[in-house]
């Protein structure tokens, strides 16, 4: 990501403007009193603005706190239904699968972070700032929140003659909130102690590694579940569990502790691999073959992973990321009961036959003298593959779907063959890729077609946040290649490709997503021939994919347009084919430019999955917004759920946008 020379980031449509990362001037920090005077009240105009802003902030803060701490709130409902909101009615005894899924993601995340993350440190000064502002916020919250309603001996709220709630006095409220006062004072005190015990230079230079914070805070949380009695609430198979004053359930505590351990262990693994790579690269650099590296003293505390190091590991981690959604969805969430008789009698022989025959065909097509005959043969394969689909549509003859897919894959591989022609190594690479594809296709087909042994009370076996996540991830993964193809077509010099792609993109971008989803969930069945069905979720994912692809295409196009003509000409002049030019020269450069808008599109897709609620799928939002059967005591408890949902969405989206800003800055830094 840190190439020194990148074409200037385009302000493509939809892209957020690139804001130069201003590095703060290195001047001594002011004592808190002076800081307040200089920053908040330097002159009359600014003082008025400050007071105005603070009043608005306090007003909003007060509203939020009053809402959260109101006696009418029933946060127990959120806690009780937490599991429901994340996985819906996933069967209790199968829950291990969910944990395997989370664990897999933890392993991948940990290893990736270990290899790639370049977390620096947080200066003591910033930490101090956080502590102090936390203290101030807590104190302010205690002061502005309205006094609690008085309750009588039976726990009922007291009302006066007019029916209004009676609240305790301000003084009593302040006294009641001594715990909060204690927290506020503790935070402020800690900040002040840090402030006085270090001199200014140390405050600004001593750093606490971010990794400590990232792993330490969850560690605290997880550890506390073993000690602190948060209470135990739940709703499983129609039964309420409400045990205030208990420890959190074993089934929550143990897995999360494991998850934390797994995360840390895989992080350590990734870091170790990376450190080894850096060390060996440095050792290689010190051998006196090259001139002095004129990179200068890199004052970045974290060394950068040398280019090309760990290439295999990195590729495999990326590949695992790409494959994991399918794997997790099919195997872990479905647990197919595979019919081995069918596998051995049909799938395996067919797969072997396809693999072998395809390999032979590709080996022929990549002969250096295949030339146009090879191209024509590949086009013939494509026509044959297309014909199988047409025939399927009209029901002329039957064929296993996986065979049709395999034919199509073979045709695509055949079309790519000229790029790999000639050298044995490259021919082997193509054949290897083909065998891998065959494996995936046949494995996938077997798994999909096998019945699931996971029995669920409702017909949807997962719901809530897992559906939100599933739809977002699949949408992004599926729409990315389509979006890139559309963008290439739209910037192509061939008029028909350009016009088709432009019409598609503009029409899709012109209509609201919800109409498209209504179309795919409601009308699409009309378009399908008899006997062909599409699961509701699949239809929704298809709708999202086609929608998202149009937007992605525009983002990618912004990047494509930033590539100078000379790059195309140079690629042509050295004799690359169009495919090679696109794959080696054009896309690598343009995708890098489009990273910020692409991450923006990922965030947008994640947020847009909430529209699933409208077309009747039980996504995160729908779970939170709907009345759950057998829960009469939580009737009308919606705002709590909605607030909770907002916070979860916010955390995920905000984290992604911060990450993309960091990426953007790094790309910008690379520019120099």
């Amino acid at each position, binding site marked *: 990501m840190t190439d020194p020379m990148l074409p200037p980031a385009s*302000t493509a*449509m*939809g892209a*957020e*403007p*690139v*804001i*130069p990362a201003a590095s703060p001037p290195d001047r001594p920090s002011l004592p808190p009193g002076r800081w307040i005077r200089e*920053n*908040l009240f330097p002159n009359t105009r*600014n003082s008025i*603005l*400050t007071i105005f*802003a603070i009043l*608005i*902030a306090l007003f909003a803060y007060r509203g939020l706190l009053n809402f959260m701490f109101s006696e009418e709130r029933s946060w127990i409902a959120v806690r009780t239904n937490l599991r429901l909101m994340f996985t819906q009615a996933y069967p209790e005894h199968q829950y291990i699968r969910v944990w395997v899924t989370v664990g897999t993601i933890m392993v991948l995340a940990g290893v990736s972070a270990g290899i790639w993350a370049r977390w620096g440190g947080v200066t003591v000064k910033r930490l101090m700032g956080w502590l102090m502002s936390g203290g101030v916020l807590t104190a302010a919250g205690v002061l502005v929140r309205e006094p609690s309603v008085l309750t009588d001996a039976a726990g009922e709220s007291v009302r006066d003659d007019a029916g209004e709630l009676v609240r305790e006095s301000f003084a009593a409220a302040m006294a009641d909130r001594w715990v909060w006062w204690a927290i506020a004072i503790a935070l402020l005190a800690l900040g002040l102690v840090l402030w006085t015990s270090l001199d200014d230079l140390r405050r600004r230079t001593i750093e606490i590694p971010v990794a400590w914070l990232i792993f330490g805070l969850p560690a605290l949380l997880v550890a506390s579940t073993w000690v602190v009695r948060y209470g135990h609430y739940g709703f499983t198979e129609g039964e309420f569990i409400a045990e205030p004053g208990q420890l959190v359930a074993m089934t929550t505590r143990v897995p999360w502790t494991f998850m934390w351990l797994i995360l840390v262990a895989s992080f350590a693994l990734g870091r170790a691999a990376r450190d080894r790579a850096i060390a060996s690269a440095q050792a290689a650099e010190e051998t006196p073959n090259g001139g002095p590296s004129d990179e200068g003293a890199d004052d970045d505390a974290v060394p950068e992973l040398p280019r090309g190091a760990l290439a295999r590991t990195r590729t495999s981690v990326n590949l695992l990321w790409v494959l994991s959604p399918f794997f997790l969805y099919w195997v872990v969430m479905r647990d197919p009961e595979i019919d081995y008789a069918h596998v051995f009698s049909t799938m395996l022989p067919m797969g072997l036959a396809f693999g072998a025959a395809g390999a032979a065909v590709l080996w022929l097509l990549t002969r250096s003298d295949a030339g*146009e005959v090879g191209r*024509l043969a590949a086009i013939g394969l494509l026509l044959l593959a*297309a014909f199988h689909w047409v025939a399927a*549509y009209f029901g002329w003859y039957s064929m296993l779907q996986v065979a049709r897919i395999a034919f199509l894959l073979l045709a695509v591989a055949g079309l790519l063959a000229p790029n790999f022609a000639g050298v044995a190594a490259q021919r082997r690479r193509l054949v290897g890729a083909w065998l891998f594809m065959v494996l995936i296709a046949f494995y996938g087909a077997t798994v999909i077609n096998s019945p699931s042994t996971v029995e669920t009370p409702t017909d949807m076996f997962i719901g809530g946040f897992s559906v939100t996540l599933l739809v977002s991830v699949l949408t992004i993964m599926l729409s990315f290649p389509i979006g890139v193809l559309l963008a290439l077509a739209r910037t192509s010099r*061939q*008029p*028909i*490709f350009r016009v*088709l792609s432009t019409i598609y993109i*503009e*029409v899709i*971008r*012109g*209509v*609201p997503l*919800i*109409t498209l989803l*209504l179309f795919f969930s*409601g*009308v699409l*069945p*009309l*378009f*399908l*021939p008899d006997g062909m069905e599409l699961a509701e979720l699949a239809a929704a994912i298809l709708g999202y994919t086609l929608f998202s692809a149009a937007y992605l295409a525009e983002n990618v196009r912004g990047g494509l347009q930033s590539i100078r003509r000379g790059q195309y000409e140079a690629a042509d002049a050295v004799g690359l084919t169009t495919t090679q030019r696109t794959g080696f020269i054009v896309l690598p450069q343009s995708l890098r430019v489009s990273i910020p808008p692409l991450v923006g599109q990922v*965030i947008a897709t994640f*947020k847009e*999955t*909430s*529209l699933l*609620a*409208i077309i009747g799928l039980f996504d995160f*939002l729908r779970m939170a*917004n709907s009345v759950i059967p057998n829960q009469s005591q939580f009737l009308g408890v*919606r*705002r709590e759920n*909605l*607030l909770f*949902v*907002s916070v979860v*969405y*916010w955390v995920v*989206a905000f984290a992604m*946008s911060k990450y993309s800003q960091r990426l953007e800055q790094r790309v910008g830094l690379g520019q120099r």
Partner: protein
Amino acid sequence: MSDPREAARDASLSALGTRPPFYRDATVVRWIAQVGTLILVLAAMWFLATEAGDSLRARGANIDFDFISDYIGIQVGSGIDTNPDSGGRALWVGMVNTIRMAAAGIALASVIGVLVGLARLSSNWPLRRLAGVYVEALRNIPLLVQILVYAAVLATLPNVSFGMGPISGWIHVSNKGLSIPRVFVADGFYQWAVIMLIGAVVARITYRRLAEQREQTGAQTNAGAWATGIVAVFAIVGWWVHPIFGWLGSPLGSLADGVGAIPQGVVQLIAALAALAVAVWWIRRFLAQHRTPAGLTRLTDDDWFRMIFAVVAAAIVVLFVTVLWPGLSSWVVNSSSDGLGVLADKFGNGRTGPPIDAMRPDIVQPGNFANYGPAGLNLSIGFAAVYFGVVFYTAAFIAEIVRGGILAVPKGQSEAAQAVGLRRSTALRRVILPQALRVILPPVGNQYLNLTKNTSLAIAVGYSDLVQIGQTVYNQTGKTLQVMAVWMLFYLACSLTISAVVNFFNIRMRIVER
């Protein structure tokens, strides 16, 4: 001479000047690929369409647009007409609601967005942070969640009761929403609109004249004031004299009849000729671009393919309108005739009332519970929730765009402005903003589009926008595809309109810049 290169060379030398076989000809191959793709796309669409037609026929539903004029018996929650007499009218109510929401939303979102964007750049720390919190909080929560939150919060407002406020008889706020005075298009509006049109033409002519005069003589002619005055005079006089245009009804009616009587063949002919004319115009333009001064036209193979394709495309269009879908032309004829008929009804000697009327809101109690009466403009909780949702959400994005645009203006500009002694606020208004606007406008136009499309989330809180009403209509009539076609056309038209407006200002700004 045993070098294989030499051998190849001799072989190709002998082939000099001959055309390569078609499968090796770069241009031909490219066009085969393109036309192949096009055929594939068209065929796929054709398959899907026939399949849909079959399924619909199997269900006894036809692809027609009769529901537009037929009574379908649905009720609309809010809008210009809560008991529409036809499906078309119902959809029209939805369109008006959507446009109303989008226009009001764009206005408020722009104001809030610009203010927050400026606040994010303020030198005042609390203000800057406050704006930052606003942006980060709102743009990272899904809009639908926000709308539902607003709806849930607004639902806790008090019930409707007589004499409620805040200003009884003028503004009422309750958990049924907001009720305010209603201004509406009344009897004589269309006749008055004709007078206004004439006024506008007269004003424009006057403006031109006066502006020309000023350019030639340098005298102050107040062209703008004159033009405004003329329009005002026409508006005021027209308020009373508009019945004089009542006679327009009968010619429009006969025009409608005339259009309706056009035989299908004529329409098909016109459409076919139009398609051919476009193709011919395009080819002529293409040739003109390739004409060298010597009068010699050099065309590559690719050029030939392009021209042939234009002809073929035109031929396909002709085939389509005449043979494949002859119903299209009669549908066009009928609907334009219907449209003219509706317009004709708007005129008439009986229509003597004022063009625009207004009513104050009222509260009625038909049963046990008091409710808003039909007189006022009732904006439901759903409206408010969607409105606040799209406004606050879009404003967060606009704020970021404004901030980026201002930061994109080189620092030297504000320094130069200060150097010539402009105050900070003047510099911002006169120097920075005009330059930033060029960066800001296109993405903000995109945001306006998003806002318009996002109003369709009204379906989640039951506000009667086009999508919500459309869904009711197709649930009632089963005309799903037709309603979706209406949606698509409407939103595409909105997109085009907004893009056109944004482009217009963009171009103007570029001219001003020179």
